[in-house]
């Protein structure tokens, strides 16, 4: 695989991968699903001639988990919150509803689910701090923090909502939606530095960039994948880079850093497909490459990082030079030289 190492882990498709942040572990550790497992992808003592790591990820520890794991975050905590999501009656066995998304901002934890419910937990408290029942009449697919007291959710009727947790009202403070058909939105991520820039991915594989300071519609609509986009992530330290993965088996790297000639090249051997795309923007906007409207500078390089795609890429995460993703072929892949 060149600089990508892979492991078939016989896990039901990895739905969630998160590298543990550096202050807890080296960025080599990530978790997969269904059994919740912690793997190590790196052992610097085994570096090959060019500093490439050739080994397979190694399992460190895991526990059994009932049901599919849909999302994951890391936090020091020692709790289970059972039956946090349910339809109608919490206690009937078939009344449970899938919890589709979770986000942490130590010590707070927010979850959303197919029951349209938003739960707010604290790591040290047994019961939910706050619950918004029927926050949404459709399924909430993902949640992320906008600011420390505000969250963003996306749902299955194509709406992006901002919720202000300081208010006791059980209503979103703002609702955004796509212009055309109400295509379900599956994932959301906020720009790490510029909090008004939000990216969402839809069921039709479309990537939308929103400026939440203005308007209720997206700034850019980028036609990307051929099927559901399951996850979208801005690179945490280099946010001109965005990553999306999809049911169609591809993982796209979107590079909006404006100076094309200085662009780092990617060492992916074989099967590199690149496309140049100019934004089709609606609003004039400011500094960020994602909102930029200048046609001469406005070229974005998009690369599919998977040469032989077969089944869906369900989840990805990126930290530093390291990219991790999991597929429905029950394998996890680690690329430790993303910007080599």
């Amino acid at each position: 695989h060149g600089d990508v190492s892979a492991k078939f882990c016989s896990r039901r498709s990895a739905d969630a991968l998160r590298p543990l942040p550096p202050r807890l572990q080296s960025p080599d550790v990530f978790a997969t699903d269904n059994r919740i497992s912690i793997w190590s992808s790196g052992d610097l003592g085994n570096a090959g001639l060019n500093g490439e790591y050739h080994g397979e990820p190694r399992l460190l520890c895991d526990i059994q988990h009932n049901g599919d794991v849909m999302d994951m975050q890391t936090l020091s905590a020692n709790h289970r919150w059972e039956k946090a999501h349910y339809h109608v009656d919490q206690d009937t066995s078939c009344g449970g509803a899938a919890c589709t998304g979770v986000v942490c901002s130590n010590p707070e934890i927010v979850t959303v689910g197919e029951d349209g419910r938003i739960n707010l937990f604290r790591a040290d408290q047994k019961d939910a701090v706050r619950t918004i029942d029927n926050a949404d009449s459709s399924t909430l697919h993902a949640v992320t923090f906008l600011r420390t007291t505000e969250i963003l959710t996306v749902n299955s009727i194509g709406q992006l909502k901002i919720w202000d947790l300081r208010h006791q009202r059980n209503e979103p403070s703002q609702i955004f939606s796509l212009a055309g058909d109400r295509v379900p939105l599956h994932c959301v991520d906020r720009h790490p530095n510029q909090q008004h820039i939000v990216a969402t991915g839809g069921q039709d594989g479309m990537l939308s960039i929103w400026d939440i300071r203005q308007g209720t519609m997206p700034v850019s609509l980028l036609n990307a994948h051929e099927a559901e986009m399951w996850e979208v992530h801005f690179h945490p330290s280099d946010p001109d880079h965005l990553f999306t993965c999809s049911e169609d088996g591809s993982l796209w790297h979107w590079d909006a850093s404006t100076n094309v000639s200085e662009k780092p090249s990617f060492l992916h051997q074989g099967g590199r497909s690149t496309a140049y795309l100019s934004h089709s923007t609606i609003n004039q906007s400011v500094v960020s490459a994602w909102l930029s409207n200048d046609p001469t500078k406005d070229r974005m390089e998009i690369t599919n990082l998977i040469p032989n795609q077969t089944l869906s890429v369900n989840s990805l995460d990126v930290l530093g030079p390291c990219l991790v993703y999991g597929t429905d072929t029950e394998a996890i892949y680690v690329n430790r030289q993303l910007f080599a």
Partner: protein
Amino acid sequence: MGGAGPGAADEHRPVTVVPGAVPRRQLCFAWGPAEVLVCETLFGRAGTGEGAPSTSRVFVVRRDQDIYIQTLRKLFNESHGIFMGLQRSEEELAGKSRKAQLVQVSKNYRSVIRACMEDMHQAAISTRDPALQGQYSTQVSILSAMELIWNLCEILFVEAAAAGPLLLRLLDWVRLHVCDVDSMVREVLSSENPSKHKLFWNLGNTQTLTELELKWQHWHEECQRYLQDGTFASNPHMESICKILLGDEDAILEKKELMTTWYHFLVTRLLYSHPTVKPMELRFYAQSSMDLFLGGESSPEPLDMILMAAFEFEMHQVIKECSIVLSNWWFVAHLTDLLDHCKLLQSHNLYFGSNMREFLLLEYASGLFSHHSLWQLGVDYFDHCPQYGRVYLELHIERIPLSTEQKALKVLRICEQRQMHEQVRSICKIMAMKALRNNRLGSALSWSIRAKDAAFATLISDRFLKDYCERGCFSDLDLIDNLGPSMLLSDRLTFLGKYREFHRLYGEKRFPEAARLLLTLMTAHIAPCSFWMTLLTDALPLLEQKEVIFSAEQTYELMRCLEDLTSPNPGSAPFQDDDVETTKVEMLRLALARNLARVIVKEGTVEGS
């Protein structure tokens, strides 16, 4: 993933006790896709007359596949990748390059088997549960046998090694699979007769067959001369080695304990007596080797029969025997597919119409569908079964349990990509109904939109309207206020959206617009008749405003609507004639009349502008 072919003789069929079933009762059963449903019947055993109604219970009897599937999942997943690569590979490559490609595929399959064996071996040594250890060890030996058979098939069928290289491959094959090499002989050989040794191990690529034969003949004669001259007479050990080198069967047989199997014996024998053996000659040597080696003491085991069939180039026999012996279809399905790509299988039509390759792939893939995650691999296999794959897929895909929305979405995507519209509609309906039952109206609508199911959208809208009528306000405003173009999916949904808009306009005190909208809802027949009374009642506050809102024209329209509603039409339901309704109607008539009066005056008056 069951799999015994017809006529499988199986003395070791385990007896399963169904816990909770009363022993003397008769049980009846029915097959499911991966399990058996069993229940007690009314009837007692024949002759006992003990039949009687029992508690009504249904037992689901399932083979405990957990361990089995868990450890082989890696095999299934990786081989799926190889399978897909093979299906997509270019058929235009001809001759040598195509053959090299196919050999590489075969090697890939084998390396996956070996990797799996390694994992299972690791699992066996690291587990502390003796039962598990036993299971893992069994799996290791099964995988080892599979690799042995596959390897031989690769040599004989895929690579179709010719005389010369054939023996080398067989040597490698035996060496790989048999731990005890005749090390003693080799050791002696290398120390005593270096020249012979060098010649010997040079069998191969650099020499043509005739050159090889000549050299070997020469060497053989030399050996024979040494033996006859008594050169080794003083050393019985060396003498026996010399005899072995000459291919003396008895001498070789004496060393039987060094060779673990008859095929090891076969290859050793060929090495020393017929190194340039041709593929078609193998069967004779194989048969006699097996007879000599087993010597009537033991009878051949299934593995032996399979290998023998391979040596005899009876491909179909190999596949048939493997199907019977192995408890899963994985092996035969993938091997047969590979052989089919090598164009080695005639289109051997089975009696129910599909060919062998397709039959095996269908069986294998069907087995995958009983697993909560591996079913996705099964889809790809069905795609490559041209005759029945589609039908099988249609039947199986509808029966996948849709435990989460994400799973349903994956299933839907697969159906949509294959234009399986019936299944798309059916799955969306199931999900929409589930959502509706859980009161998730937005989710239900989202599924209807995906399926473009107007009828269901109407159903959902009716639910909303019913809620409104009961509670006097709308639930889920976030949904109704943001319907967008999906509003057009059904008339009822359009009405719902527009009706909500009316309420919004009224709330914003935009009365003339609200009034216009209200009227349009009735006159354009967007509103269902059952709702007209409600709409007219909604018009009341507008009629009673200080300012005149409805124009004369509009008032006449409203009056007409009221009359349409109240006068009995032939064929329509009679208008409800109770007190509340009558009062309402009267109030409306009064309000309309008053409005008409005011508006006539207003319109008749010349506004001084």
